[in-house]
């Protein structure tokens, strides 16, 4: 792949919370159109790594570039960068004081991306695509977990981002609702969205991922195509981890 295809470049990223070092030294690039799946045991730093990519966590050291902008530069307008990177959280984080439609239109309108009517139309179009148009005027508390997460994905998509970050999007869901969320993510992947996904869904990683990063102890221990990684892990830690989750 050529250099100008690079969407995110991470250079010697380190993150510590006080004395506790979570990310030791991570250098990585994500290209346009890639679907990077990040797996690893809990406490390995996968979520922290993902959250550094849109600076929800401020790195202790190292640089991150988004396209041509160094986003770790203190003078950069981080809001302008975040508008181009959608994020989906484990616990949905919908705004409970607003209807589904308002949840989706708030950011595009407040950041000046769209006018209210335009945003309303776009919200309805997206909601129809995920089969939730009839919930537009409902409040989040009346939705099921799977519906909440689909709305959260739509909310991120409404900003028309160049990339999506998923932080364990199915971990807080009842088992029977995992499928609907993964289906939506698959469709998103098929449409060509660049994605970075922290997940425990091995099936999803195999089917959708173009690359797997295995993280442990604050570094990327191993990376490969999903086929290679899951059938033939190289490091002892990865073998041990896979034997536990696949059994």
């Amino acid at each position, binding site marked *: 792949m050529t250099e100008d295809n690079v969407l995110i470049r991470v250079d010697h990223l380190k993150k510590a919370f006080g004395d506790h070092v979570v990310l030791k030294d991570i250098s990585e690039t994500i290209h346009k159109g890639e679907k990077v799946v990040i797996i690893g045991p809990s406490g390995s730093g996968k979520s922290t790594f993902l959250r550094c990519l849109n600076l929800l966590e401020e790195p202790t050291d190292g640089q991150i570039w988004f396209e041509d902008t160094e986003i770790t530069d203190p003078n950069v307008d981080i809001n302008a960068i975040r508008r181009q990177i959608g994020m989906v*959280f484990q616990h949905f984080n919908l*705004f*409970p004081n607003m209807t589904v439609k308002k949840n989706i239109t708030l950011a595009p309108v407040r*950041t000046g991306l769209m006018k209210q009517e335009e945003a309303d139309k776009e919200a309805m179009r997206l909601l129809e695509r995920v089969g939730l148009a009839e919930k537009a005027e409902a409040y989040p508390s*009346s939705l099921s977990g799977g519906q909440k997460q689909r709305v959260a994905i739509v909310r991120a998509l409404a900003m028309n981002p160049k990339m999506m970050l998923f932080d364990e999007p199915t971990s807080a869901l009842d088992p029977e609702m995992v499928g609907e969320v993964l289906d939506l993510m698959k469709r998103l992947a098929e449409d060509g969205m660049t994605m970075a996904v922290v997940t425990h869904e091995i099936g999803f990683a195999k089917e959708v991922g173009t690359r797997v990063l295995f993280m442990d102890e604050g570094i990327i221990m191993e990376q490969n195509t999903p086929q290679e990684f899951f059938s033939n892990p190289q490091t002892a830690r990865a073998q041990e981890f896979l034997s536990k989750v696949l059994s």
Partner: protein
Amino acid sequence: MSFFENIHNQFFQTFVGPEGDRWQQFLVGLGVSFRVLLGALVLGVVLGIIVAIIRTQKDQQRGNRKKPVLSVLNAICLVYTTVIRGTPMMVQLLIMGFVVFSASRHLILVAILSLGINSGAYVSEIIRSGIMSIDPGQMEAGRSLGMNYGTVMKDIIIPQAIKNILPALGNEMITLFKDTSLVTVIGLADLTKVAMQVQARTYQAFMPFIGIAAVYLVIVLCMTWIFGKLERRMRRSDRR
């Protein structure tokens, strides 16, 4: 003289009087009390929001970048809430009336300032607890969509926080209203002061003081009712 005649007599002397205008004095006094309440309420809420935002920003500060301005502001806020909450309202009024503004004849402004500054310290703690009761994920979700801190605060955090703290804010407003009776000590002619003036003229304590107690009670009950309605209205989004 029978008991009822006596009561009737006292009532007449207290609220009508020889010129027939005493009830008007009570009304004027009540008006003063209300003006002090409204002024102090606005000042208290404004001060409270400012102090609460400074304090939570300081608490939520992460990363390695320390902001010295924020630390200084936070220290000022801490001193303010500690001193105000650690001294009696009456003493604060005496200091404001006879030390800080001893030359001022705008007694109503002095009263508003004293009560407002006092109320702000309590309101700030209430608002702070409200902001802290909101899941940090709400701020993260808002920021991840590219909205700035102020917008997320205004549209997402504060509306939810207010819903949570409405009962406490209602209580604070009721306390503030009852505290307006203390402004008597700086010589402002509020409802309580009027009752005292009438008592000095009629030599009867029962009717004026029981009378204003009833007035305070009725107004507090009205406030309770209004806040109850407001609360039920804001909870609508929880049920649908």
